[in-house]
């Protein structure tokens, strides 16, 4: 196996045996979001084997996967496909390849920024930050108001005392990102 190949990178990061896939397509048959994917889960595994880096890392599929684990529990070769999807998102983030889904990676980065600054997810802050990034201010506005009336929206984030540790966690994450 070429040590620079996508196959070896995925195998190393995920610990999963991508080569064990014999294309039974059980993963794709049971995937609840397959209809919205550009390449099916079984095809992702094949493209990894062929080292089609751009095709896989630039796909919609890796961002559409909802991490429901239906594929992983049904794979006859015990390949944890949901975990491989995590690995592919991780590799894609660092690859510089344009993501196939625009908003999903933006959401993840806003989510992590919220944890970094507040320690916990304050839902209102998260939503507002995401709207600023995506410039879609009206989506779900009336739903938000309904939820506020039902006492479901907390206006201010709660205080927490773990700031120093959270900062350390994110410092080492950011160092890995730069590498």
């Amino acid at each position, binding site marked *: 196996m070429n040590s620079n190949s996508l196959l070896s990178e995925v195998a190393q*990061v995920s610990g999963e045996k991508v080569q064990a896939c014999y294309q039974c397509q059980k993963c794709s048959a049971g995937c*609840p*979001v397959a209809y*919205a994917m550009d390449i099916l889960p079984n095809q992702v595994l094949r493209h990894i084997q062929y080292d089609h880096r751009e095709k896989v890392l630039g796909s919609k599929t890796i961002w*559409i996967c*909802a*991490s*429901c*684990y*239906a594929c*992983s*529990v049904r794979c006859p070769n015990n390949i*944890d496909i*949901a975990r491989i999807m*995590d*690995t592919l*998102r*991780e590799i894609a*983030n660092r690859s510089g390849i344009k993501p196939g*889904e625009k*908003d*999903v990676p*933006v*959401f*993840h*980065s806003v*989510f*992590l920024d919220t*944890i970094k600054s507040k*320690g*916990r*997810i*304050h*839902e*209102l802050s998260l*939503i507002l930050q*995401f709207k600023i990034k995506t410039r879609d201010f009206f*989506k*779900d506005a009336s*739903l938000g108001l*309904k*939820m506020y009336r*039902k*006492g*479901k*929206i*907390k206006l201010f984030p*709660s205080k*927490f*005392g*773990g700031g120093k*540790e*959270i900062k*350390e*966690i*994110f410092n*080492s*994450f950011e160092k*890995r*990102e730069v590498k």
Partner: protein
Amino acid sequence: MKEVSYYPGCSLHGTAREYDESIRGVSELLGLQLHELEDWTCCGASSAHCTDEALAIDLAARNLAIAEKSRRELLVPCVACYSRFKVAEKEVKEHSAKLRFSYQGNVPIRYSLDFFCDESILEQVKKKRVKPLKGLRVVCYYGCLTVRPPQLTGIKKYEDPVHMDRLMEILGAEPIPWSYKTDCCGASLVMTRTDIVRRLGGKLLSMAKEAEADCLVTGCPMCHSNLDTRQDELGKEVGDNFDIPILYFSELMGLALGHKDAKKWFGHHITDPIKVLSAKGLV
């Protein structure tokens, strides 16, 4: 009184407040004293594990390290947090992951539904039940992470789980068989690909309606939010009208055990459960 550590997680301090309040209420009635972890922080789900594995483990382990100081069981009502904690536990126990926090994998991590389905708790529920949920037809919706992957959850019947159905039976309700117990609602995509959530959620509610359920029961704050708050959108997506209350299993436990605040919890729902429950003479 049994003492238990408690990690509410971010949702239960916001949109899922009725889940938090009902878990606390039911625990009190069952003689459990919950100790909220001091200075807990977000478990990282779902964005950390989509970004960097080590970051995901760190964020989970920080909380587990706090819990391990007391050695009490750790009660986790949000299944996304639970799943991330179990992944971190596995990494430490099986792969000796090196952590920046002192955590050895010695905290029993308990998902709320599993915890309240323990035989000892069910025995107490049988004894303390004051208002059987007679005539209430429910579909039990387990979703993904409460059962999958079974290597983490320990659930043997992961394709056709029955523990919530049994709990509902003990409460006096009538759990109805249906085929969508463990289908995904698309939760993690709700902000970004709402269209997918509408389609998956619409399908779930159609099937609940076809089963002639009075309500759908869940133990996941994300599933709850998707199915409770967007029923008009989900209906439009599949060409139907829905008015199906989505209840946390703990709210129904509280109702059957006669908790005085049960009606307050129902007041936080977008799809009103009081109509159905009062028609059955339960509130």
